[in-house]
């Protein structure tokens, strides 16, 4: 607990000097900066290694602005001041009230300690460390900051989609949506949360961008999307009853949504619940993927497919696919594929009058020699004698 929390009317001037001293000391060990505590209006209270002299009004405004920015983005963000200094700050908070902030600053020259063409001071790290220190001292509202960081990241992704959309002239939101939907469903099936989130953001942005302020249109899209997500989740192994409940809950929540701003958090909550429901049955998901991989292999046996083609067909990275395959099937991909080809060839040998060469080809063997060798290894005899033998048995 920090000393501020015991006060009924919290005020930053009551901040324990010893806490500030501890933060300052630790921070200055790592970074060539000055550090101070400011009130919400930017007025300096305590400082260490700070520049001499009084701050002008604009300077105070700037420090105050910095604290606001630190709150807004959930992470200190560097701003440049005409006096050739760089500042970054973390708000000091009690619940949602901002009592002031801790600001760090450095001279522009200090930015490149070993010359302009060398990498500059890692201010990203400096920003993050300052926040963590202040969070450890329990002087800020970590939950609020974290939420703002997530929002910032989401907005950044949204901005990128917008930039892309502006470059690409695509007409019709439906078309766009249909392009993204299969990708979303496959990342959901694979339980890939972060990729799913990204795609959801893309879809949201597109829909909002194109639907403009026709909110009902947006809602109808959302209903469709949630229904598809639920169906996919059940296919991927989630408990149908649980998903039905989820679906109902989501739709009820959607009904009370009145603005675009509420949509994104809502849709993300839907996604998280769905992913949780799938994650509760992890084996179902992956065995389903492997089943569809094997179906794909069967359908393409006559073609020269390889591991990478199949991995791509089920939307997995080749290495991840290999691991999953081995885990579920019990033997490696190549081994299994040859086995399937040989089984197929054996069937053709019995059921058709095709020549050995034709059968090798129809089973996906590019070379007859390799076909003969593989067949012999797995079946214990050559294709020709296998055909003979089976015919004799039938007779």
């Amino acid at each position, binding site marked *: 607990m920090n000393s501020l929390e015991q006060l009924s009317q919290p005020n930053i001037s009551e901040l324990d000097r010893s806490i500030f001293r501890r933060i300052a000391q630790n921070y200055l060990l790592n970074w060539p900066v000055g550090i101070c505590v400011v009130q919400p209006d930017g007025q300096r209270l305590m400082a260490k290694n700070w520049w001499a002299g009084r701050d002008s009004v604009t300077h105070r405004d700037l420090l105050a602005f910095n604290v606001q920015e630190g709150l807004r983005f959930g992470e200190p963000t560097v701003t440049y001041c005409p006096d050739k200094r*760089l500042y970054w700050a973390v708000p000091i908070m009690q619940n949602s009230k901002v009592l002031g902030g801790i600001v760090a600053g450095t001279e522009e020259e200090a930015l490149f300690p070993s010359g302009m063409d060398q990498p500059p001071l*890692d201010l990203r790290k400096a920003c993050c460390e300052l926040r963590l220190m202040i969070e450890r001292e329990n002087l800020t509202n970590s939950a609020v900051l974290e939420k703002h960081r997530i929002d*910032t990241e989401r907005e950044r992704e*949204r901005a990128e989609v917008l930039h892309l959309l*502006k470059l690409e002239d695509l007409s019709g939101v439906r078309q766009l949506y249909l392009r993204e939907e299969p990708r979303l469903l496959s990342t959901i099936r694979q339980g890939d949360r972060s990729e799913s989130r990204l795609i959801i953001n893309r879809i949201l942005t597109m829909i909002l961008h194109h639907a403009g302020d026709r909110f009902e249109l947006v809602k109808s899209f959302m209903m469709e999307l949630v229904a598809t997500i639920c169906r996919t989740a059940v296919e991927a192994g989630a408990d149908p009853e649980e998903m039905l409940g989820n679906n109902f809950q989501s739709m009820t929540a959607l009904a009370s949504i009145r603005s675009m701003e509420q949509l994104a958090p809502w849709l993300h909550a839907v996604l998280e619940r769905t992913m949780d429901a799938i994650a509760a049955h992890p084996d179902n998901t992956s065995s389903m993927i492997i089943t569809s991989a094997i179906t794909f292999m069967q359908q393409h046996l006559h073609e020269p497919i390889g591991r990478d083609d199949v991995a791509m067909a089920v939307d997995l990275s080749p290495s991840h696919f290999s691991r999953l395959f081995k885990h579920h099937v019990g033997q490696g991909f190549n081994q299994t594929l040859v086995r399937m080809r040989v089984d197929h060839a054996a069937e053709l040998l019995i059921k058709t009058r095709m020549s050995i060469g034709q059968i090798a080809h129809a089973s996906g063997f590019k070379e007859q020699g390799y076909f003969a060798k593989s067949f012999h290894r797995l079946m214990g005899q050559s294709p020709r004698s296998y055909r003979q033998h089976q015919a004799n048995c039938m007779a």
Partner: protein
Amino acid sequence: MMDLKDLTEAIKTGNRTQATSLTQEALDADLTPQSILDAMVVGMDEIGDKFKRNEVFVPEMLIAARAMNESMAILEPSLVKSGYKPLATAVIGTVQGDLHDIGKNLVSMMWKGSALNVIDLGTNVTPDKFVAAIKEHDAKLVGLSALLTTTMPSMKATVEAIKSEELSDVKILIGGAPVTQSFADQIGADGYSPDAASAVDSAHQLLGIR
């Protein structure tokens, strides 16, 4: 023939002295201001990509931006035709909560070069300040810039503030990387331009010049 790649590089690395002297050289070598500008924007775009990939952080963007702004200042006189009587006054600024000013500065420069008297309010400009400036300078055109998706609502608020004042036929033109025509329609702005060059055409169109 000088290579504008060096200028792009100088902007990217935020090397101000080099960027400004290369800009001067390019001008002296009779390269068009537009081609010089384009080389700078490429540098800015590249730093933007690096930021996206977490390869650089804000300070690098800041110094690149400063190199760009200083080099642009050198270009300005050759873009801004002197001796013209301005046809109208325009107010321009980056909306509240947003500190990005390069795009806005470019538009401002182009406008000055097309016989407009431009009042630049800078960055992080509140709706009130826009309204006050329009009144004070009897502006017929306002340019709003936003580079963050999160400041697009400020843009909307600014448009609303201007419209609610019923200022005699002032036109609002908006722009910035996340801004689109459909957003302009949505918030009731009079126009949108994707870049500085078309911002001139749009301005003239809105003002009924030519």
